[in-house]
């Protein structure tokens, strides 16, 4: 920029006009993307937030209801169940997927010869469509499916269960399928975090006589905190919004036992035509997700402050 300034000062007029228009990246470059994102994503979401306070049914013109939709959601037992299932899935999934992911990352981190190919295998389910994965597992978990067949074959016939036919088991099955699919993704997050935990540091601790468990607890784990923060936040958001797996595995059943916020929002809108009410539940979902994201950003900022 300084060089341009001198030229301009030396030869005012023509040189200035020649250089000035190209001095900066033009705003025009961003206009199409901003327009698409705003018009097709942000604006509909804002409208959705507005409809949350109405009784819109998609046909007649919406009537303002104030907070009636929200008090209906918190006031009836059906939606309380839905909220409870979502939280149960959330807690079980977040704990499960992070433990498995961390275990895979730590276990595959050191000297194993085939760790490259093992990582590829463990990550593989994450690239398949969640819907297709859920149908594969529906077959495995079927009362006459592969899992019960295997149990009978090894003499554990007494453990045969209607995995998707009983409320608690069905909920646990949904969580298990989600963990199966995404454990490899969380393994990647932790592996990336482990790379930044210097190997020298741990080796020095080993020389100083720290055992494997102490090395893990006192060195690896604290330094993995940023990765853990991201991993927990991402898994929480995934579990709040779960839809494909539930629709394909159980359709929300048996008897509504696996209905979650994601399927509830969909059914209220597209089955019952209650767009306004559905939007209010979606808005609550967004608020929940935003809270998680804000906590995550705050924790990350603290980490940066410590590092700086």
């Amino acid at each position, binding site marked *: 920029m300084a060089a341009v300034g001198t030229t301009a000062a030396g030869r005012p007029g023509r040189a200035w006009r020649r250089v000035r228009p190209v001095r900066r*990246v033009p*705003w025009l470059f961003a206009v199409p993307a901003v327009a698409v*994102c705003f018009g097709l994503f942000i604006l509909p979401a804002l409208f959705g937030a507005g409809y949350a306070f109405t009784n819109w049914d998609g046909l007649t013109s919406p009537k303002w209801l104030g907070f009636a939709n929200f008090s209906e959601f918190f006031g009836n037992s059906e939606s309380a169940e839905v909220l409870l299932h979502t939280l149960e899935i959330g807690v079980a999934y977040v704990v499960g997927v992070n433990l498995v992911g961390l275990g895979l990352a730590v276990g595959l981190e050191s000297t194993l010869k085939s760790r490259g190919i093992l990582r590829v295998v463990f990550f593989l389910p994450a690239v398949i469509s969640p819907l297709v994965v859920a*149908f594969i597992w529906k*077959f495995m978990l079927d009362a006459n499916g592969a899992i019960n067949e295997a149990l009978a074959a090894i003499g554990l016939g007494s453990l045969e269960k209607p995995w998707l036919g009983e409320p608690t088991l069905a909920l646990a099955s949904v969580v298990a399928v989600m963990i199966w699919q995404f454990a490899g993704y969380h393994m990647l997050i932790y592996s990336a975090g482990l790379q930044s935990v210097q190997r020298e540091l741990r080796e020095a601790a080993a020389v100083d006589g720290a055992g494997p468990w102490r090395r893990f607890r006192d060195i690896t784990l604290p330094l993995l905190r940023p990765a853990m923060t991201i991993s927990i936040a991402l898994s929480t958001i995934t579990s709040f919004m779960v839809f494909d797996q539930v629709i394909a595995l159980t359709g929300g059943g048996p008897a509504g036992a696996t209905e979650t916020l994601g399927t509830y929002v969909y059914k209220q809108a597209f089955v019952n035509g209650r767009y306004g009410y559905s*939007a209010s539940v979606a808005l609550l979902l967004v608020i929940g*997700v935003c809270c998680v994201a804000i906590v995550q950003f705050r924790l990350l900022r603290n980490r940066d402050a410590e590092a700086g």
Partner: protein
Amino acid sequence: MSRYTRWSAFREAGFWVAAIPILLPLYFVVATALKPASEGGGSYFKPPLHPTFENVSQAWSQAGSGTVSFAGALFNSAFTTAVVVALLIALAAPAGYVLARRGSKLSGAAFGMFALGLILPVQLGIIPLYAFMVEAELAGTREGLILVYLGMLMPLAIFLYTGFFRSLPPAYEEAARVDGASPTRIFVTIVFPLVRPITGVVAILCGLIVWNDFFVSLVFVGGTDKETLPVAVYSFVGRFSAQWPLIFASALIAMLPVLVFYGFMQRTVMRGFSNTLRG
């Protein structure tokens, strides 16, 4: 710590045992899909003795929901994914460039909007967007579906590009600028080729999201002949419930392109996924 001991061999074996539950379901898909009807009824674990493509070809020519064949759904998925990825790159790359290079308040605000878009779930806006698409006569069309995906994935694409452009030193551009090249020319001939790695990441991530997406496709083109593969599989399962050879043949058709792609590009795909976590 870095020696390969007997304990390492033991752990290695343990991890391969742990990999069985990952690979077994995929084995069932392939084995069941390729099993001829004459071998049905036996154990699921038994491999097909005389593998056949009869299930696959039956699923291939069957209509998913009565409106689209699997061949058609495969085309819909491929076309939608390719167009969305191409448009995303064409729009997000220059936008990310501006956001990274102009440090003003306005670009901060724009970046804030995209960050908000990253965490905003599609569910909230999907009904108004659907109503709009109906109004514009775009509901149930490929164009409409492509537009929805574009809006939905733009924040992620811009986020990735902006992060990458920020780490790119502006020396090359400045040299070209002094030589009098126009901003468009600088971008097309110098800057865009320099960010090829992140273009690859955007293509892989967004491509996989579109290819695998079920919800948006179900809402906007469900029940029409524009259905993508996951929706076609869904309606197929609805029609042929518990006919696993046919269902798995359809699952195989839906998975195979992604699995082949992953097989060739595993490192790149995995690097792409870890890339989203920085920035």
